[in-house]
């Protein structure tokens, strides 16, 4: 049986690579991380003419330097034996920039097919690309496709299959107007001081100075490191001063590697690209009128911001109004299911602890998390729409000024706003941020935004202790959360801020703004499906385990299974933690236990209080009166209530959020740090609020 063919998909961000990839694989994807790094790796399989193909989606990259994780992963993978052919997806309407990556991919020496995507847009704009001359100049096959209209897909796969074994069977025909001869010729005595005639061998030929050095380095590398895959590529990278390769293959030839030739190499590549564009593209039009008109409004210096806020309000409305409406039905279904399971288990005469574990622990825990599914689906439909249409990148520009002052990317605004609804999708949305530092910072502060699950706590305690100003007390919590989030971001920003504006530039905004387009339903569907699958997997694993742990804590004690809360490990833990909570006015073990239980889901704080203080129907007037009387008898007054609300707002987010943070950050250590940080902030702010309230109230 012939070995299945592995095809790597490479390309710039926004070139339609993922759409093309999805067009082949559909939703049948395996998503994992590249070994050792948190860069996503997508793999799919597909059959064509009775052969099996394995498709690997490489991270979007503009070049193949060692400066970013994505680029390192891409080039290491292409150099490995795992991949047979590279399909380089290029946005034909921005060929000039896309060809830069193409030239580098060709240099890596693996068979490359150039897929010219978005040819429909090129035609619509009245441009023409000479698809006969282009392969002659590059020495690789060029196949026009449209990922959105699914045209050219079979031809592309056919070319890939045929091209697999032959890196360079397309003849290269260059007639350079200026030619390499007009470049500055090396004065250094080169290998033989010869004129280089590489134009029949390589698409990209550099000036004689650089070609001399490449030849010398190849000799040197062959002597020192026999068995390397592609000497020319290694030589070029060494000339560029590539850190990774200089460390891996040190050469003591300061005469050749006298400086970094990176800039020369970049410039000469772009010179060649200019030459290609001159010959190949007819009726070149740099800018799209549609995008210009849309941008005139959407990125307007005054209107850009209100329009964005309006769009976010709409997303928020859809997610939490329609989502919550559907969630109600989910909840009903869950109640019905849990009642049914309870009855069924009782009929089977299963031991009560086991029934409790299944019904109170697992079904309630996992089911409670599943009820967020409608919110998540709607939110990610909306976000996928914004992303695929090209608007999302503009958000970074529109919000840059305001968020920039907090040292955050403009896009960090989206997770923060979504945090008012639910921290889980908000943290998932932080993945859209461009850099890791921003993602981590956003994940630290997003849980401070008061999610809807915390509202029941505010409602209960503000009605009990601030009956006249209940609304005000509840809403001030939302404001407090926002202030704490902004303050934390600002403090972190000041702490890490570079001294000069030249240092700051490294964290400054730099993002491509793709052309606007009508989003593809297929891409959106696959995007949403991936998120949902992700979320479901988590509900089945981490949250499942967390539910069991919480159940054990609250139902087991030194004497075994117990239905009395004050005999459980939870209450022992609560009593043990009382000294820690006393300074903030929460030194009551029942309150501490309720807060611990609230980690499973924040609204549980309310139901736990009801159980711990043995008050039935805590949300009714009578229930509230009796709870308030009990608490009052313990010396728990308005200042304590304020401290409790503040602490509930800020302390560790719920288990589902923690699991999401773990997933996005890829590290338990960092997740533990985030939790500790949030407890610290919660304690500090509650302490201040409590002391302040004692003075004022």
């Amino acid at each position: 049986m012939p070995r299945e063919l592995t095809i790597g998909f490479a390309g710039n961000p926004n070139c339609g690579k993922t759409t093309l990839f999805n067009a082949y694989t559909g939703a049948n994807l395996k998503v994992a991380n590249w070994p050792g790094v948190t860069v996503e790796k997508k793999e799919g399989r597909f059959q064509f003419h009775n052969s099996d193909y394995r498709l690997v989606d490489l991270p979007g990259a503009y070049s193949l330097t060692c400066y970013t994780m994505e680029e390192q992963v891409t080039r290491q993978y292409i150099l490995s034996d795992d991949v047979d052919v590279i399909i380089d997806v290029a946005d034909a309407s921005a060929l000039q920039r896309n060809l830069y990556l193409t030239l580098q991919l060709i240099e890596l020496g693996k068979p490359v097919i150039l897929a010219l995507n978005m040819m429909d847009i090129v035609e619509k704009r009245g441009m023409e690309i000479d698809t006969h001359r282009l392969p002659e100049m590059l020495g690789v096959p060029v196949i026009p496709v449209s990922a959105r209209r699914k045209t050219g897909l079979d031809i592309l796969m056919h070319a890939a299959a045929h091209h697999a074994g032959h890196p360079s069977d397309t003849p290269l025909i260059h007639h350079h107007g200026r030619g390499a001869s007009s470049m500055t010729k090396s004065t250094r005595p080169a290998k033989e001081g010869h004129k280089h005639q590489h134009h029949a061998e390589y698409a990209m030929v550099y000036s004689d100075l650089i070609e001399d050095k490449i030849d010398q380095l190849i000799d040197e590398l062959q002597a020192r490191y026999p068995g390397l895959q592609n000497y020319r590529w290694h030589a070029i990278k060494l000339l560029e001063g590539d850190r990774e390769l200089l460390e891996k293959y040190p050469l003591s030839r300061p005469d050749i590697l006298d400086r970094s030739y990176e800039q020369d190499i970049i410039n000469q590549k772009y010179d060649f690209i200019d030459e290609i564009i001159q010959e190949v593209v007819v009726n070149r039009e740099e800018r799209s009128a549609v995008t210009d008109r849309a941008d005139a409004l959407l990125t307007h210096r005054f209107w850009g911001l209100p329009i964005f806020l309006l769009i976010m309000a709409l997303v928020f409305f859809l997610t939490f109004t329609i989502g919550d409406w559907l969630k109600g039905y989910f909840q009903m279904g869950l109640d019905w299911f849990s009642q049914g399971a309870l009855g069924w288990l009782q009929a089977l005469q299963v031991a009560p602890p086991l029934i409790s574990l299944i019904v109170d622990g697992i079904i309630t825990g996992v089911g409670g998390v599943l009820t967020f599914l409608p919110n998540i689906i709607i939110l990610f439909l909306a976000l996928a729409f914004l992303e695929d249409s090209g608007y999302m990148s503009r958000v970074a520009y529109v919000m840059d000024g305001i968020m920039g002052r907090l040292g955050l990317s403009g896009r960090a605004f989206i997770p923060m706003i979504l945090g008012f609804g639910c921290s889980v999708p908000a943290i998932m949305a932080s993945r859209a941020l461009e850099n890791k530092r921003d993602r981590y910072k956003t994940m630290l502060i997003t849980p401070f935004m008061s999610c809807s699950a915390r509202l029941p706590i505010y409602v209960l305690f503000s009605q009990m202790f601030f009956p006249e100003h209940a609304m005000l007390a509840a809403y001030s919590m939302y404001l407090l959360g926002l202030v704490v989030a902004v303050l934390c971001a600002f403090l972190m920003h000041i702490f890490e801020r570079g001294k000069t504006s030249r240092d700051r530039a490294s964290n400054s905004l730099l993002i491509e703004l793709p052309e606007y387009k009508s989003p593809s339903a297929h891409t959106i569907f696959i995007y949403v499906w991936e998120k949902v699958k992700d979320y479901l997997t988590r509900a089945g694993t981490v949250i499942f385990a967390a539910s069991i742990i919480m159940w054990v804590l609250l139902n087991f004690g030194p004497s075994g299974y117990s239905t009395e809360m004050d005999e459980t490990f939870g209450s022992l833990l609560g009593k043990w933690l009382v000294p820690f909570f006393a300074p903030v006015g929460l030194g009551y073990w029942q309150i501490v236990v309720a807060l611990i239980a609230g980690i499973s889901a924040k609204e549980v704080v309310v139901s736990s209080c009801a159980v711990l203080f043995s008050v039935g129907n805590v949300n009714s007037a009578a229930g509230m009166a009796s709870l308030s009387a009990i608490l009052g008898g313990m010396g728990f007054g308005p200042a304590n209530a304020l401290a409790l609300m503040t602490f509930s707002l800020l302390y560790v987010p719920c288990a589902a959020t923690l699991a999401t943070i773990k997933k996005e950050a890829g590290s338990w250590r960092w997740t533990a740090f985030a939790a500790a940080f949030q407890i610290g902030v919660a304690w500090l702010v509650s302490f201040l609020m409590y002391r302040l309230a004692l003075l004022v109230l």
Partner: protein
Amino acid sequence: MNLLEGSPGSVYRVDGLNLPLELARRLEALGLFPGSQVTILRKKRRGAMIITVRGTRFALGMDIAEHIAVRGESYAS
């Protein structure tokens, strides 16, 4: 002058990048280096701007724009 001082609708030619090495290399990979032509499309009062380089639009923060030396093209409009 630097790019930050430029005005929307005008075309500039890059003279130099006074930026940390990695950032400079990233910009160069995007086609922005000495000799490249840059058009400022839009600009906010304080800060970020939208430019085109080699047919592609980018949003650029002020801290970067400030360190890109440019000169006006003769046919700037």
